[in-house]
């Protein structure tokens, strides 16, 4: 069954995203030097989440895929975010 057209992503875009991922990785390491106390996990997750979003959207072609798959991906991310938030109902109030 072939009901999706294949989108060709230029190599330059891949290169750009790779560069961005490396910069974000560097940022993740750099922010550990700053004392963010209870926000350190949130910042680390935000940076990791941003990197994942680029990988999903460009490398895994989610940006060019059917809407239903984009909705599914967003719902799953919301689910995992909820799990993390609920876990922090323990850590933040202990």
């Amino acid at each position: 069954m072939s009901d999706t057209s294949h989108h060709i992503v230029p190599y330059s875009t891949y290169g750009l995203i790779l560069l961005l991922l490396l910069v974000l990785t560097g940022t993740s390491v750099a922010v550990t030097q700053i004392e963010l106390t209870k926000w350190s996990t949130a910042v680390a997750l935000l940076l990791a989440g941003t990197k994942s979003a680029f990988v999903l959207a460009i490398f895994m072609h989610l940006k060019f895929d059917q809407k239903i798959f984009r909705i599914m991906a967003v719902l799953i991310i919301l689910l995992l975010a909820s799990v993390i938030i609920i876990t922090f109902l323990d850590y933040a109030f202990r």
Partner: protein
Amino acid sequence: MTSNDSENKGYKSYLEEDGGRKGIFKWILSTDHKRIALLYLYSMMVWFTVGVVLGLLMKLELIAPGQTIMGPQSYNATFTVHGVIMIFLIVIPGLPAVFGNFMLPIQIGAKDVAFPRLNLLSWYIYVLGSILVILSLFGNGPPDTGWTFYAPYSFKTGTNMLPAALGAFVLGFSSILTGLNFIVTIHRMRAPGMTWFKMPLFTWTLYGTGWIQLLATPIIGITLLMVAGDRILGIGFFDPAKGGDPLLYQHLFWIYSHPAVYIMILPAMGVISEIIPTFSKKTIFGYKAIVLSTLAIAFVGYFVWGHHMFTSGMSGTALYTFSILTFLVAIPSAIKVFNWISTMHQGSISTDIPFLWAASFIFVFLIGGLTGLVVGALATDVHLHDTAFVVAHFHFIVFGGVGFAFFGAIHYWFPKIFGRMYDKSWAKTGWIIFFVGFVTLYGPMFYLGMIGMPRRYFDYLDEFHGPNIVSTLGALVMIAGLLIILTNLIKAARHGEKTTEMNPWGGTNLEWQIPTPPPLENFDEIPVIEKATYKYD
């Protein structure tokens, strides 16, 4: 011969199609979803026997105070290996791997699952994980952590904890791949006209289960790797001496392991939703409510893991959040029970053996579910946590729920799967003995827990003696029933009366509209679905 008979229709059943292979190779190299289902069934029967024997040994130890047949270390190892085998090798994969594999493609009008080779690979991974679990029995002694592998003890014990944890890690991949296969199959391979709300309810529960398998299982994998990191490399994720947090382990473990309870119970609910309308000869009551409650259980089930940790020292905010969420998840479960009972109401009920298993499922599931609310409430849980009450609740849900549904399913689909029929009177005898034994085994444990008997101890005070004798006698009665059931089924699979009747129970799903046993690719032509299932005239 009636039109309900598939004999002499000039086809070869999947059991006769060997793909040009001989002996065991026609099984272990076959990518046919039906043969793979039977591979799982036979593998699980072996592990189930081991698990039952270990369970019996524990009950024999507890028949009297003091050391009876084993010491404390052996007892710790016995309940750990019993738990690991029963949870990771039987009840988590059980219904999806056996009956899901066999029935899902047929129920949606497909010739196989979306990825047949991946399906076979899942079974090989399952076998590899099983071997690792069994290897943990040798060498330094079996693991003694309990099936939960709680830190910090799990990275400090000198026993064979790593092979067992690695086995659970590997088994997770089998579970993920099966879930992925089912989700893709349901999305992409439904027959024309098989819209979402025409799908059989067993398939719906496999869909909900598939998502849990896919999304929750990686978390246990990562968690067990972290334990291995603590144990081998001394990293200290969960080691308070190094700034780690043992409670983080409990969070991560239960983020997977509570949804895993729904991996176990959702397909069981699907089986019951198939059996009850068939034997009540009545359209299922509230089809959409059952579908939505399935999805609701799968979704809300992600957020209730903390109720396993009420006495662990979590924050007050987390405690009452998890307690409220736990009470919420009871609502969709209750909807299902209401709908099953309403389906039976004014139905033309025939008390064949699959129906008896389904009806007794509702009985034990209700007890298991309602006692779940007792331990889901903060105040009562403080009293009952880590007592025999929890063991009773857990077994009423997991063994009562999954076990009864499994036996219901095997008796329901047996003629379709094997093309033979079992002895119905022996099946009923086995069921009643098993049922009486089950309630006698686990019932007293509720009382024992309430009067304060802790779980996971090889010894106890004299005041707990009486109910423990009753419980052990119950175990012996239950095993007698189990032997009758298994002997009857094994004998029937080999020498039972042959049947080619397509629809022996008068079911309405697609599996009852194809020959018995099914041909290799299920359908000569993919069917076009015109009317909803569960319609009885």
